[in-house]
Each structure stands twice: as structure tokens, then as C-alpha cells.
């Protein structure tokens, strides 16, 4: 897109994003406590390392390094052969050591890029500056009316990868698309569980506006956004707020802001004037990470196809763009192997049918069951058996699409699959009646019971035929072939 299409009241907005991704590990970055703080009582997943006691020795988690290396490939680059840890100093009660162990000078990822899909379907490349490993801080709460705060260190030490983009986005839509694409990639590459509700990915957006496209304006940083929607809203809010200030002749203050969802606005949190006073120095407790060529090659071969590869593959099979995006999301939040059956479907018609079944039947079913804490597990083998079996019945004209849906829902949720799908469907009354004489007797019954509708049809009212077909479907409990029923109704009335 040309720069001028981005202009808002003559100002060019520029956005950079930092994202903290929680790595999928069992334990913390430097300690042996469990990483899974969901529902845990406060301060139960803590030891001397999380408390930052003098003499406690942090030891690096090899799995966190592996996940970060996988992330490099998800960002279209390779991990650095050499990286190391530094101490970042600041005082805050949720950081008991007085410093955070992070990577400042030599991060595990330098460079990289991801392509984002724009509103018009074209792609745009957004470059990645760097990504580094660091430990999370604890969580603090501030009881209303009290003169104290409460700290829970369960989350302290959780391994994070902080991914920093170049300031190359120019609209709220691009910022949202970047956050969404990062979410897809971090899950596809198995870097993180990417559960936004649990805070597995948290976005900080740096926004500035400028009348001169060659020069960046003063930026604000809105921190800790945990949904794509809030990224979009916070960026739009900041663009409007900054332009209004500048139009009033006021200056933008470089500061940290927070998004308040109740009020749908950002509010100032603290001034960033001391930003560079973290007094970083190399952490003497953690020896550097050296990744061999063999290790990097091994990680490379373990990282599966990224979303853009799937877009190309599914697009070539004739799946529509909007459907593809829904399928990619299903790969993230329903089932990692859900897409495989589409590629193996065998015919163009089946590709579309299977994509449609996943989007309209399996995904809603499994999300609903998961919400009711009755999650169902569907193996790729079962999915293929069910989809192929039901497709065969449809292709033989033995199943209506409504009954196909009922059958799929039932078969995906039962423990054992029936040996003979057709016999099973028959016993459930799903098999479509295509026997003319059987349908004819039902049609006759319906015509006798609805003389007014018959008169209406004779007077040329086409709607009445639809009503009669509906009655036939009702009497046959949905098993009559509707096209055949219509044909017979027309024949008998004429």
C-alpha cells in the first residue's frame, strides 16, 4: 500500500510491536518448579530461585532454549550460534532479585520477518528486529482501600520469548494482522500454547504519528494487551489521541500507557525518562548458549509448515480464502492435525466438503464440548474414517446434508465407530429414501391431508410446493430425497 493511503488527517501513523510469548515448557526458565500457574494457590510454585534468595543458583532450562530456536524458524530466520544472558536492574516488589535475567547484548534471535495478510488479501512483510529469552516477573494485586499490595511469585521465572518488530506497520489493521500472524506461527511451530486468555501472549504497541513520513514522531508504548481486538483498539485510540494533542499545539510525552477495557481508552502509567537506566551487565551465573550446526539443523527439520505454506496448499486445492483463515485458526485452537484430512481428501469435491465440515461441524462441536468440560479427542484416523465414510454415502445419494451433519456429530463423539456406516445410518433413520414407490405413498398421504395446498399449487402458487415437500420430509422423518419428493408431488398434482 502507498504511504498516503495510511494517512490520518495528514499524519502517518507508525507502529512497532513487542510481544512476550510464554514458552511451552514444564518448568521455569531457571528453576525446577512447575510452570503451570493456572488455578494454583498463590506462592505454591516457588522455591529459592523464584524468591531470589542469596546463594540460589539458577540453571537454564534446555527446553526453553529449544522452543526459542523453533521460534527463529517461525520468524523466517535461524537462531544465533552464540547468545548470552544479562541482568536488567530495576526495583519492583514482584521482582525479588532486584534484576531480571534477560538477553540484552547477544539475543538468541536477530532479524527475521513475517508476512501479514492485509485487508485486500495482499501480503506485506514486517521485519523482526530481535527476540530474546527472559524470565517473567511475579503478579501483584492492589486490594481496594488498602495501603499495601500483595505479591504472588508463582509466575516469577516463567520462560518468555520477547519478540520485537521493526516500526513498519502503519495502521491498526496491520498491527492486529501482525499480532494474529505471530499467534498462528508460535502455535504452528509449537513454541507456545498461545492461550491468550491465560496471558500466553502479551502485546505492547509502540505508536507514533508524524506529518513528515521521513521522521518518526515521539512514541507512546501501550503495554500488556492480551487480545487482537485490544491491539487494534489501543492503536486506533493512540493515533487519534496523539493527533488531537498535536493539533492543539501540545507535545507528545514518551511514556508507558495501559489499555483500560471498561473505558475503551489508554491511560498514562509512568514516564519513560529513565528507560536506559537498567544498568545491564552480563549475568555471571548463566554460562552462554552455544548452538552447534547439528543442533540448529535438527531444530529446523522438526519445525512443521508455517501458515503461509498452508495458505498456498489449501488455496491450490480450491479452498476459499476466508475458509482457509478459519481452518488455520482451528489448527491453533482446536486440533493441530485437523488440516491433514483435507490434503488427503482425494477429490476436489471432497476437499471442499471436508473443509466445510471442519469449519461448520467439527470446530463448533468441539468448541462447544470443550466449554462444557466434555472435550472430545478426535484422532486423525477417526476423522478420516468418519469423513470418508459419510462422503461415500452422500456421493451415493443416500444421505441428505442435514442428516450427514447429524451422523458426523454422532460419529466424532462416540467411543467406537460402527463397522458398517450405511447399516448404522439406516438404523438411525438417516438414510435417504430414494425408492419412488415408498416416497409416492408418503406424498399421497400428505396431499390427502393438505387439500388447500394442493389447490394453491394448481393455481400456480410455487410456494405451496415447498410447503408440501416440507411435509413429506416431516412425515418421512427427514429420510425422503427432497428432489425426488418434489418431482413426485408435481407429477401427482398435475
Amino acid at each position, binding site marked *: 500500500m502507498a504511504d498516503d493511503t495510511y494517512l490520518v488527517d495528514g499524519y502517518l501513523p507508525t507502529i512497532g510491536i513487542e510481544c512476550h510469548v510464554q514458552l511451552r515448557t514444564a518448568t521455569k526458565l531457571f528453576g525446577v518448579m512447575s510452570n503451570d500457574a493456572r488455578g494454583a494457590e498463590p506462592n505454591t510454585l516457588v522455591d*529459592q530461585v523464584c524468591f531470589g534468595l542469596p546463594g540460589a543458583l539458577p540453571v537454564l532450562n*534446555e527446553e526453553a532454549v529449544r522452543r526459542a530456536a523453533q521460534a527463529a524458524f517461525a520468524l523466517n530466520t535461524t537462531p544465533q550460534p552464540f547468545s548470552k544472558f544479562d541482568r536488567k536492574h530495576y526495583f519492583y516488589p514482584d521482582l525479588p532479585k532486584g534484576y531480571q535475567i534477560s538477553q540484552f547484548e547477544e539475543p538468541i534471535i536477530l532479524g527475521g520477518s513475517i508476512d501479514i495478510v492485509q485487508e485486500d488479501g495482499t501480503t506485506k512483510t514486517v521485519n523482526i528486529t530481535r527476540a530474546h529469552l527472559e524470565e517473567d516477573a511475579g503478579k501483584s494485586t492492589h486490594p481496594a482501600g488498602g495501603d499495601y499490595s*500483595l505479591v504472588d511469585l508463582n509466575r516469577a521465572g516463567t520462560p518468555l520469548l520477547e519478540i520485537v518488530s521493526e516500526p513498519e506497520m502503519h495502521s491498526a489493521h496491520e498491527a492486529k494482522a501482525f499480532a494474529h500472524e505471530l499467534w498462528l506461527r508460535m502455535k504452528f511451530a509449537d513454541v507456545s500454547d498461545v492461550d491468550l486468555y491465560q496471558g500466553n501472549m502479551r502485546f505492547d504497541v509502540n505508536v507514533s504519528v508524524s506529518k513528515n513520513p521521513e521522521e518518526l514522531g515521539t512514541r507512546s508504548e501501550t503495554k500488556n494487551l492480551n487480545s487482537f481486538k485490544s491491539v487494534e483498539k489501543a492503536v486506533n485510540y493512540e493515533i487519534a489521541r496523539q493527533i488531537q494533542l498535536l493539533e492543539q499545539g501540545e507535545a507528545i510525552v514518551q511514556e508507558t500507557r495501559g489499555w483500560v477495557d471498561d473505558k475503551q481508552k489508554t491511560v498514562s502509567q509512568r514516564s519513560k525518562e529513565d528507560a536506559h537506566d537498567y544498568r545491564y551487565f552480563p549475568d555471571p551465573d548463566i554460562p552462554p548458549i552455544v548452538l552447534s550446526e547439528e543442533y540448529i539443523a535438527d531444530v529446523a527439520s522438526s519445525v512443521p509448515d508455517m501458515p503461509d505454506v498452508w495458505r498456498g496448499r489449501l488455496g491450490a486445492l480450491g479452498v476459499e480464502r476466508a475458509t482457509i483463515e478459519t481452518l488455520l485458526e482451528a489448527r491453533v485452537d482446536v486440533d493441530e492435525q485437523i488440516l491433514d484430512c483435507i490434503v488427503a481428501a482425494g477429490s476436489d469435491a471432497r476437499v471442499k466438503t471436508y473443509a466445510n465440515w471442519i469449519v461448520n461441524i467439527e470446530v463448533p462441536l468441539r468448541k462447544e464440548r470443550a466449554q462444557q468440560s466434555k472435550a472430545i479427542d478426535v484422532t486423525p484416523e477417526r476423522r478420516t474414517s468418519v469423513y470418508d465414510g459419510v462422503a461415500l454415502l452422500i456421493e451415493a445419494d443416500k444421505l441428505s446434508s442435514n442428516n450427514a451433519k447429524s451422523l458426523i456429530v454422532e460419529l466424532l463423539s462416540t467411543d467406537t465407530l460402527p463397522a458398517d456406516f450405511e447399516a448404522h445410518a439406516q438404523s438411525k433413520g438417516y438414510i435417504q429414501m430414494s425408492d419412488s414407490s415408498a416416497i409416492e405413498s408418503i406424498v399421497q398421504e400428505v396431499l390427502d391431508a393438505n387439500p388447500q395446498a394442493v389447490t394453491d399449487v394448481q393455481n400456480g402458487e410455487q410456494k405451496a410446493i415447498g410447503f408440501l415437500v416440507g411435509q413429506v420430509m416431516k412425515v418421512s422423518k427427514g429420510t425422503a430425497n427432497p428432489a425426488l419428493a418434489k418431482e413426485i408431488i408435481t407429477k401427482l398434482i398435475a
Partner: protein
Amino acid sequence: MSKLTREDVLKLARLSSLTLSDDEVEQYRTELASILDYVDQLKAVDVDGLKPTYQVSGLTNSMREDTVQPAKADAEKLLERLPSRDDRYIRVGRMI
């Protein structure tokens, strides 16, 4: 002798969460200045072409398996020793 202003010392104190008396500010102003002088002496050494020494142990990849282990200092003992707590929470001065 390096120049260090009163404001420099107060800023450092703020970043380190320390409250200093006027006498202490003056004391640290001189002491820190002599440390800076020492650093200036080190800076005079020509280190062109040398890689920075981040660590002296010579170790690399000192890592552990990602398996949950029992704590050396367990949560209950750590909580018992807190100067101030509220049930299982660490209680601190109001932050915001």
C-alpha cells in the same frame, strides 16, 4: 578526579531504591568519583581486537532437563520467613 554531581548521586540512589542523608550523598559523591577514576585507568588499556569477557568460568550450555523437581527450599518454609504476609501472599508497601 572525575566530576560527579549531587544530582548524579541522587539519581543513582533513586534507581537503587536507597534513601541517603546529605552527608552520605557527599560521601558517595567522592567515593563513586574515585571508582570512575579507576575505570578510566582501565579504559586506557588498548583492547582492540579482543573479544569481551562475559564470563570467567569458560563454561557453555550449562543446562538442565525440563522436569519438575522438589524444591530445595519449599514454599511453606519460604512463606514462614516472610516479614509480612497475608494468607499465602507476600505483603508489601502499596505499589500504585
